[in-house]
């Protein structure tokens, strides 16, 4: 078990900066009146997060939707899930009754299908990269860069991995050619280290190889490398950025080793622009960061390795797996510990510049304000730091940050409903977690609470 390192003393100076910046950003967030649809979504999500059984029913429905063969089938499943809600509210009882008749099922199925599609479209920017290009351009014009993420079913075969790699290749091509016509946005396309690519693709190692074995990471590295090399080559040709997403701890070693090994190869020593992800919830995240720094010190690149700091999205999985196997939890178990880790790593990353490029990905006003405050105190002006949000969750925040002239990037998933479901469930879970920042904000928590040190 690794003990949590001592927190960096929160100086009064940082705290007052956090407060000042946080209050400004908060004031710039649009009021619900400006976005009535978003406010409605927020209310619906809020209602379901207060009723755990209903929340479970909703997730199960979202999860099964792509496998349903008809509206009737979908409504049938919905009816079954609702049966398990102990004390249904009147509208739910009406839905359950509807599920018992054929016409009722059709109407219910249509309503459920519409609702799920509506939610999916909030988080997923299109079924294909081409479909997403309009949104990417709009974002860019409004001062928000993007990273495209291709959603897909799990990769269990070599064919599936090949197909995914081809989709990545096509996405790079489509983005790069579309981005060439985008208007100039100096804040988004350069930083003190040099130019920042417009086209940016995030890839997942689990999609690029079926050979993932937690106990034999080399197998996955070797197999995925065959598919990732051409992508790096293509990104270099097109002047695009390739980012290696991080998933569960079982694949961390494979992902990190793959990224660092490939970027060490002669062909990729300078280009393309590339990045990895650091998950703050991992107890070992500091050690991982030091390992990345060591690598970066011995492999200086003209476009430095980008490190995206995230909280980590596989918390439930890590906890469940550890409990079932009897292992110590590899992740911090409280939100406060995760948040403190996030701030420590933020500071460590910002201090290490220009060894690496830093991207802070969070929807937490405190974490973002803290990053900006640290940057300021370390003598930065916000240009040497990127902020990232998820499309559909952090849209307001992105807008407010872009208005301050900061470099903001929205993570934009692309895919059809079938492949997007797992992603959608993950985002909904995140959004309905009561202790999440978004939950707090939706409850109308006061600024003192939103900006309190963890």
């Amino acid at each position: 078990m690794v003990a949590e390192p001592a927190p960096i003393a929160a100086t009064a100076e940082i705290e007052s900066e956090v407060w000042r910046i946080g209050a400004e950003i908060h004031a710039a967030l649009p009021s619900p009146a400006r976005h009535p649809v978003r406010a409605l979504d927020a209310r619906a999500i809020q209602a379901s997060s207060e009723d755990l059984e209903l929340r479970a029913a909703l997730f199960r429905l979202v999860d099964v939707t792509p496998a349903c063969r008809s509206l009737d089938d979908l409504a049938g499943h919905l009816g079954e899930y609702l049966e398990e809600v102990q004390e249904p509210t009147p509208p739910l009882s009406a839905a359950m009754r509807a599920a018992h008749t054929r016409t009722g099922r059709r109407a219910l199925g249509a309503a459920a299908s519409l609702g799920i599609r509506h939610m999916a479209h909030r988080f997923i920017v299109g079924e294909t990269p081409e479909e997403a290009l309009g949104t990417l351009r709009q974002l860019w014009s409004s001062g928000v860069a993007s990273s495209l993420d291709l959603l897909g079913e799990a990769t269990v075969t070599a064919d599936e991995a090949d197909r995914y790699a081809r989709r990545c290749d096509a996405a790079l091509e489509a983005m790069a050619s579309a981005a060439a016509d985008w208007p100039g946005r100096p804040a988004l396309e350069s930083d003190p280290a040099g130019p920042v690519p417009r086209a940016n693709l995030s890839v997942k190692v689990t999609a690029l190889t079926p050979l993932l074995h937690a106990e034999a990471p080399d197998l996955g590295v070797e197999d995925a490398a065959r598919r990732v090399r051409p992508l790096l080559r293509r990104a270099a040709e097109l002047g695009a950025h390739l980012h290696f997403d991080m998933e569960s701890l079982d694949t961390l070693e494979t992902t990190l080793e793959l990224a660092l090994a490939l970027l060490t190869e002669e062909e990729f020593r300078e280009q393309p622009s590339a990045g990895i992800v650091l998950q703050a919830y991992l107890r070992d995240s500091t050690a991982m960061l030091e390992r990345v720094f060591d690598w970066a010190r011995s492999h200086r690149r003209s476009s430095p390795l980008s490190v995206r700091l995230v909280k980590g999205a596989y918390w439930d999985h890590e906890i469940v797996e550890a409990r079932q196997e009897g292992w110590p939890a590899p992740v911090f178990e409280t939100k406060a510990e995760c948040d403190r880790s996030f701030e420590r790593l933020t500071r460590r990353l910002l201090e290490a510049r220009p060894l690496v490029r830093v991207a802070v990905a969070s929807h937490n006003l405190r974490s973002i304000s803290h990053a900006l405050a640290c940057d300021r105190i370390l003598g930065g002006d916000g240009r040497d730091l990127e902020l990232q949000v998820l499309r559909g969750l952090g849209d307001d925040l992105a807008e407010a940050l872009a208005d301050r002239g900061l470099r903001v990037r929205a993570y934009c998933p692309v895919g059809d409903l079938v492949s997007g479901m797992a992603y959608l469930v993950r985002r909904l879970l995140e959004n309905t977690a009561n202790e999440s920042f978004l939950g707090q904000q939706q409850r109308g928590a006061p600024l003192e609470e939103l900006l309190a040190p963890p």
Partner: protein
Amino acid sequence: MIPPPFRNEPTLELRRPGERDALAAALRELDRRLPLNVPALIAGEQGTSSGIESRDPGDPERIVAVAGAASGGDAAAAVETGAAGLREWGARRAEERATVLVRAAAILRDRRHELAALEVLECAKPWPEADADVCEAIDHLTYYASGALELERGPDLIQARGERNAMRFAPLGVVAVIAPWNFPLAIPAGMTAAALAAGNAVVLKPAEQSPGCALALIEALHEAGVPVRALGLLPGYGEAGATLVRDPGVHAIAFTGSSPVGLEIVRAAAQTPEGQDHVKRVVAEMGGKNCVIVDSDADLDQAVPAIVSSAFGYAGQKCSAAARVIAHEAIAEPLLERLLGAVEVLRVGQAAEFGIDVPPLIEPQATERVEGYADRARLDGRIAFEAVGVPAEGCFCPPRVVTDLDPDSPVLHEEIFGPLLAFESVPSVEVACDLVESLPFGLTGGLFSRSPVTVKAVAARLPVGNLYVNREITGAKVGRQPFGGNRLSGVGSKAGGPGYLVQFAEPRVLSEDTTRHGLLLD
């Protein structure tokens, strides 16, 4: 000492390189000490010490253990010694027995790296499964230690006024444990620990393929304090086991293995020859033909990896392994395509390498048997996938998926115990249930469905002992998934669950009139 509340022994976190290094080092160290010497142990005395060689299935040149091939005379001596040991061990309080079992668990825990390495070499268990087997052996010891205390307390009976009633459990006597090689520590440990926990003496006849693992178990139990006369080791071939089963001094037989042998034991145990004044009890875990039903609303992302690991993990050599996939026709085509692709990327190789999915089979006869079924599958259906380029040295057998089988084909009805998976498409889950019900077995089953109603309906219909929903159908954990089959797959209660220990004990009820002259005295 009261044993702490049971919790499953944590597996090694093999995603951490340090753990893998420790295992690899243990294997190198063990390799230097081979071959191990495994004599028969009767009253702690070394008996017959040659006649059996266990070999590394991946490298048949490597002899892992040289064991004694016990004779009929050895078996009789072992039972007689057991009867003497019973008086000593059976007289101990449950708490003392529990303490000994917990101590034995601690000894196995201390040796866990070495024991996992031994399973890798002697039985070609890939590392994660070898480690899980060591953990399960530890689990059985600690679980039945707790169970011994509960058994001694006995159940609560109705106490009417004027009488006092109690139900107590006494040991049965000498228990013959006949164990397989496929879970070379966990299964012998489970049967042995249960019998010992209930106060019996045990004679363990391990499979001739895994005497080295059995010796490690016996050593741990002796060292922990089981009297040597109460626990004998009888390595040998089938004949030693058969003699043991027929011995009139044996009171119960705990067996895990194939159905034909299990049924033979049931028949033999039914005999009550002159001079045997008890009926032998049999607890038997036997074969299966385990089916996984995949409904149209299943999550194939989840189903494919789970089916592949259930069917091909340890090359299919688990009684719980998946043998048939019965898929709803609406998703049969994409499911089959993805399954074939997923089987294609399985790694066939030496168990000692990390990341191997399909190790060699236990011995050449096993390969011949599976190849026989593959030939039959070619006649009765179609081999949709067969891995190429499996290593020529060692007992390797290519993973296969077969389809379009004649409904009467033995490939669909008999236990193959190897890396061969049959795939069928059906119009509905009801038809799938009919197919499962028509089998004589009832061990494990699987269902992939996201409909709560379907899950309930299938669970109510299938006669299997362990039904797994939306997960792999192997890897039962002690205390969490008590394990055992119904129908011709087994007789007796589930291992690693409540009710298992009582099978090794003789219930005795004591009722006392507490009145005197019609007066209540209590």
